[in-house]
């Protein structure tokens, strides 16, 4: 039954009256002789009663065909946005970034290297199989097996073994104590999948989540249906359709024409024009993203910290945010946004000051500095790179921008002659470790530590913060190391982009925290 949401409620009202009249008619006709008439009325009533259910259908759009709907075999946001409705993780992230129960109801650390989780009772996969400890173990082991070829295995690679204690208890053991483990288990790649069906999950996903898979018309749409046996209770929205619409302008036309109920991840320019529409609701919120200008500190041109500090002083972050991102970002100081656990809250040590920048460069004895900035294809990065070019020109630095596709960019910035690099990043676990360890630990040079930042104290603090579950100790370590990094200036964090979405006012109760891939419809409904 494909009822367009915009009219479905009106229609339902109509059906309701017709159906009740029909019921009366049918009831009275039961006593009547003459079977044919009776049959007709009853079958007519069945049809009407079926449509009485106000099938609430939500239609949304993603801009690319998901490569697969097996969450363990991909690291693609379009896949995750859909699999997040179908599958569930052991733990979840609340709106304020806390770890909260999902398939696991409680957990404890019997030992620093052992996490014991109690599973929720009465949860079944969509095929009816009960969710038990064995299934969770098998699912995690599939993800960890190198032969599975899971691109997201690195998220859980700290795990060395998974043990079943009883049918509803498992223990996850790590080689070393790994404090952010729970945060990593909340990542969509760690979704619990029924391993017995793992060969077909990509096209016929089966999970424990609020929505069950109905159909996937490749390149066109994925449709889902409310899981009647969902452990979390009844769902108001019965059908969810993910349409695949690559063009933002097409998504906007569809939203305005009523063909879509919600669109997200809208570029700033388009979002601003949607804000003026009376018939739509727009929202923007701080997510887990950040944007950076990094320095290859091992490059002779950039080894002098004064040169890097001069560049930091030359950048007007407020102007970038207001003029080029339409205010849809927050100027940044530390590499992780305030939504991330243990993000330091410090004042900008390098306020916009071209005079000071020129003075620092003179002090360092640098004249006629010419630098290459590598970025990958991304509209925001490309716009920001041009602004940076103008700002640096103002202090006498020539910036040569090189835009490449992502794989070529990675190769370029990992090579020794890299100079400046621009990148966007997501702290997808919302734990400081995910980003700070990758960016600044000596062992991550040059894979993720593209700045070749090698400060023994910082590496030690990162190891220390990773290995203790004590939040106070972690807090201290991250505060100290973020201050140190700011001083050493291996990268300027430019801004934290806001996530955006626009929806029809009839959609209420939806939750969209930190990123567009996290649309949560469990409490949502479509009201007139």
């Amino acid at each position, binding site marked *: 039954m494909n009822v367009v949401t915009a009219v479905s409620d009106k229609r339902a009202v109509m059906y309701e009256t017709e159906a009740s009249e029909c019921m009366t008619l049918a009831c009275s006709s039961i006593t009547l002789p003459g079977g044919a008439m009776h049959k007709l009325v009853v079958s007519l009533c069945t049809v009407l009663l079926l449509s009485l259910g106000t099938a609430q259908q939500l239609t949304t759009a993603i801009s*690319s*065909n998901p*490569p*697969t709907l*097996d969450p363990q*075999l*991909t*690291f*693609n*946001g379009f896949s995750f946005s859909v699999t997040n409705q179908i599958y569930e993780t052991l733990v979840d992230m609340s709106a304020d970034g806390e770890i909260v129960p999902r398939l696991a109801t409680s957990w404890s650390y019997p030992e620093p290297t052992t996490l014991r989780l109690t599973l929720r009772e009465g949860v079944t996969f969509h095929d009816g199989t009960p969710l038990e400890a064995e299934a969770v173990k098998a699912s995690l082991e599939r993800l960890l097996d*190198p*032969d*599975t*070829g899971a*691109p*997201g*295995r*690195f998220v859980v*690679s700290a795990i060395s073994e998974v043990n079943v204690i009883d049918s509803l208890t498992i223990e996850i053991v790590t080689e070393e104590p790994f404090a952010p483990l729970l945060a990593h288990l909340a990542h969509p790649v760690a979704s619990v999948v029924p391993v017995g069906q793992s060969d077909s999950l*990509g*096209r016929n996903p089966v999970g424990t989540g609020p929505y069950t898979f109905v159909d996937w*018309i*490749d*390149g*066109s*749409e994925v449709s889902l249906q409310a899981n009647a046996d969902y452990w979390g209770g009844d769902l108001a929205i019965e059908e969810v359709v993910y*349409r*695949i*619409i*690559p*063009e933002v*302008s*097409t998504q906007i*036309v*569809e939203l*305005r*024409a009523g*063909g879509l109920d919600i669109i997200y991840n809208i570029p700033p320019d388009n979002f601003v024009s949607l804000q003026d529409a009376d018939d739509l609701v727009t929202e923007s919120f701080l997510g887990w993203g950040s944007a950076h200008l990094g320095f290859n500190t091992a490059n002779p041109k950039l080894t002098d910290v004064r040169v890097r500090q001069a560049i930091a002083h030359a950048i007007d972050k407020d102007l970038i945010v207001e003029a080029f991102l339409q205010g849809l970002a927050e100027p940044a100081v530390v590499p992780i946004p305030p939504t991330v656990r243990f993000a330091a809250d410090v004042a900008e040590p390098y306020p916009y000051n071209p005079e000071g920048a020129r003075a620092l460069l003179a002090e360092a004895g640098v004249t006629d500095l010419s630098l290459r900035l590598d970025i*990958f294809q991304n509209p925001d990065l490309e716009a920001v790179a041009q602004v940076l070019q103008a700002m640096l020109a103002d202090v006498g630095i020539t910036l040569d921008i090189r835009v*490449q*596709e*992502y*794989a*070529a*960019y*990675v*190769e*370029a910035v990992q090579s020794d002659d890299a100079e400046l690099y621009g*990148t966007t*990043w*997501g702290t997808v676990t919302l734990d400081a470790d*995910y*980003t700070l360890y*990758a960016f600044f630990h000596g062992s991550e040079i040059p*894979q*993720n530590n593209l700045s070749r930042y090698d400060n023994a104290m910082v590496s030690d603090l990162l190891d220390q913060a990773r290995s203790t579950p004590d939040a106070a100790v972690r807090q201290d370590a991250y505060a100290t190391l973020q201050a140190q990094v700011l001083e050493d200036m291996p990268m300027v964090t430019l801004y934290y982009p806001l996530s955006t979405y626009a929806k029809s006012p009839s959609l209420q109760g939806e939750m969209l925290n930190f990123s567009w891939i996290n649309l949560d419809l469990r409490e949502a409904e479509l009201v007139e």
Partner: protein
Amino acid sequence: MLTYVLERIFGLIPVLLGVSVLVFTLTWLAPGDPVVALVGESAQGISREALEDLRRSYGLDRPLPVQYWDYLSGALRGDLGRSVRSGLPVAQEIGMRFPATLRLTLAGMAVAVTLGISLGLLAAVYRRTVIDYVAVVLALIGVSVPVFWSGLILMIIFALELGWLPASGSGSWQHLVMPAFAIGFASSAFIARITRSSMIEILRNDYVRTARAKGVVSWRVNVRHAFRNALLPVVTVVGLQFGSLLGGAVLTETVFAYPGVGRMLVDAIRARDLPLIQGTVLFVSVVFVLINLVVDVSYAALNPKIRYE
């Protein structure tokens, strides 16, 4: 004739070999690590070891000639391999997308041929009159206006303002109308220009003058005597347009969110999903060559002077 057709079909073999070598080399010459491209930019933070494990599991650690040979021997047995990103057989991926592409191409060509030939005929018959100029300008607009603009304008008028048609997607004939017009209009421009010049050429011939001198009615001369003979170059252009639409309606598919082969190929190229790129390009090449063959054979039907021996 049969020998000719068979020869042409056997001629496909070197073409396909060439295409496969070209695609394989081009994909490998592209800068950057193919594993990084496959995993995508969202997998930031991945470790070096994890990347190497993936390289092994995707089979991308084998020497290039070995990879090519494995691919080729598979393809010869009819096995195009599996898409790395989706894990599905390439043939199945193409099978899911090709019907939509074929529908859009046929509908688009119907628009293009009707519009193109009518405009071309009118322009030629009413040469150097207002009708001619209007037709030429329309054709010019058709070639010049990019579909991401015209598509959006169509959408705003017919979906948003008038509400007559669905703005995007696929599934019913209504969904086909706007994309078919968008690509049909662009292709009609080429057809119109060829029809016009070919007609003008023919209308200059002696036999046309003779026919007119004999008092044959004007439309009859234009349609029966001239147009039939003017069709030959038009058929060539129609064939070429048909072929290019089958593989290349990427912009139209993108604007109208239409699930065709073109968009699939672009996604595959972005992610460097080599088996999928190879398979799709090979498939489109075969179709292209076959369409050209049909075009060549239809010459003989249109003009009995042409014979293939």
